[in-house]
């Protein structure tokens, strides 16, 4: 099973809670996915505390561990303050650290990310950094105190799937003992299965489930895909080859002339 910061998690799928058609569908999708970690955020409260309380009641009723994020933060200061506010509200040191650097791609500002990660790790946060597949940045994040890395596989919400599998494979090979969670850009269950087959420890996704025509069915499909990919990599997959090889024994084949 997946172990993160001393916590054993039964599922290797982490699921976001945004953009669902309704709170009821969100709750059912979370249950159908089999996940045990959901991501949440903090936003300006405009209803005197009641909007946030309603959502938080729904999440607490699901009995999941929560991973708050710093989504939308574009500076180190914003991200660090948001993380501290999240720790107070959600009562967890876990933080999905996002420092966004580009408005179009939502690519992380990796320089700010490393700086924010260092500040938060020194403050005893369990930092889950949303990063790129850059190996040098990954090294810097680990030096800053991170014990988990979350590389994107494509821009957030793009549904493109792993657009640079070579880089992701390289990352897996370079950090064999670091939990690696593919975060952002997954569009289909086959994308999730693919990265799991390449040895990634887990995936985190949101839009692909929430914006599906049937989010509950898609949540279930992603849950199965993640399990299938994990089981496959543990079971030893065949290496592809260029020529055909019969699967039915040739010995004892009848000869007709």
């Amino acid at each position, binding site marked *: 099973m997946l172990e993160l910061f001393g916590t054993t998690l039964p599922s290797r799928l982490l699921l976001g809670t945004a953009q669902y058609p309704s709170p009821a569908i969100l709750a059912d999708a979370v249950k159908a996915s089999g996940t045990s970690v959901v991501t949440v955020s903090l936003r*300006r409260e405009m209803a*005197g505390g009641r909007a946030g309380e309603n959502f938080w009641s729904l999440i607490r009723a699901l009995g999941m561990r929560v991973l708050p994020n710093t989504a939308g933060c574009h500076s180190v200061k914003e991200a660090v303050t948001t993380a501290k506010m999240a720790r107070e509200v959600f009562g967890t040191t876990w933080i999905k650290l996002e420092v966004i650097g580009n408005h179009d791609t939502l690519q992380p500002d990796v320089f700010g990310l490393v700086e924010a990660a260092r500040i938060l790790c020194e403050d005893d946060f369990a930092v889950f950094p949303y990063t790129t597949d850059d190996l040098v940045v990954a090294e810097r994040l680990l030096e800053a105190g991170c014990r988990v890395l979350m590389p994107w596989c494509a821009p957030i919400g793009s549904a493109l799937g792993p657009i640079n599998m070579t880089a992701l494979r390289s990352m897996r090979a370079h950090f064999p003992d670091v939990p690696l969670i593919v975060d952002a850009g997954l569009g289909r269950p086959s994308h999730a299965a693919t990265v799991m087959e390449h040895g990634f420890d887990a995936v985190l996704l949101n839009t692909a489930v929430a914006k599906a025509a049937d989010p509950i069915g898609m949540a279930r499909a992603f849950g199965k895909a993640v399990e299938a990919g994990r089981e496959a990599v543990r079971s030893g997959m065949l290496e592809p080859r260029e020529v055909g090889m019969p699967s039915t024994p040739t010995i004892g084949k009848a000869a007709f002339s």
Partner: protein
Amino acid sequence: MKLIVNGEAHEVAATTLAELLAALDYEGDWLATAVNSDLVHKAHRAEFQLSDGDRIEILSPMQGG
């Protein structure tokens, strides 16, 4: 005193952060507060003195990816 609360200008009589929350009808245990971009812990709101022009953020749990 003039304050910016969640991006909107307010003219209030409150002098502490706790008084401000009460005056604006914020309630509940699931709020996080920051003044001028720094977290103010819940336990410190009653003693936290506000100043004219302060920027206050009042956040609560929301959906996130």
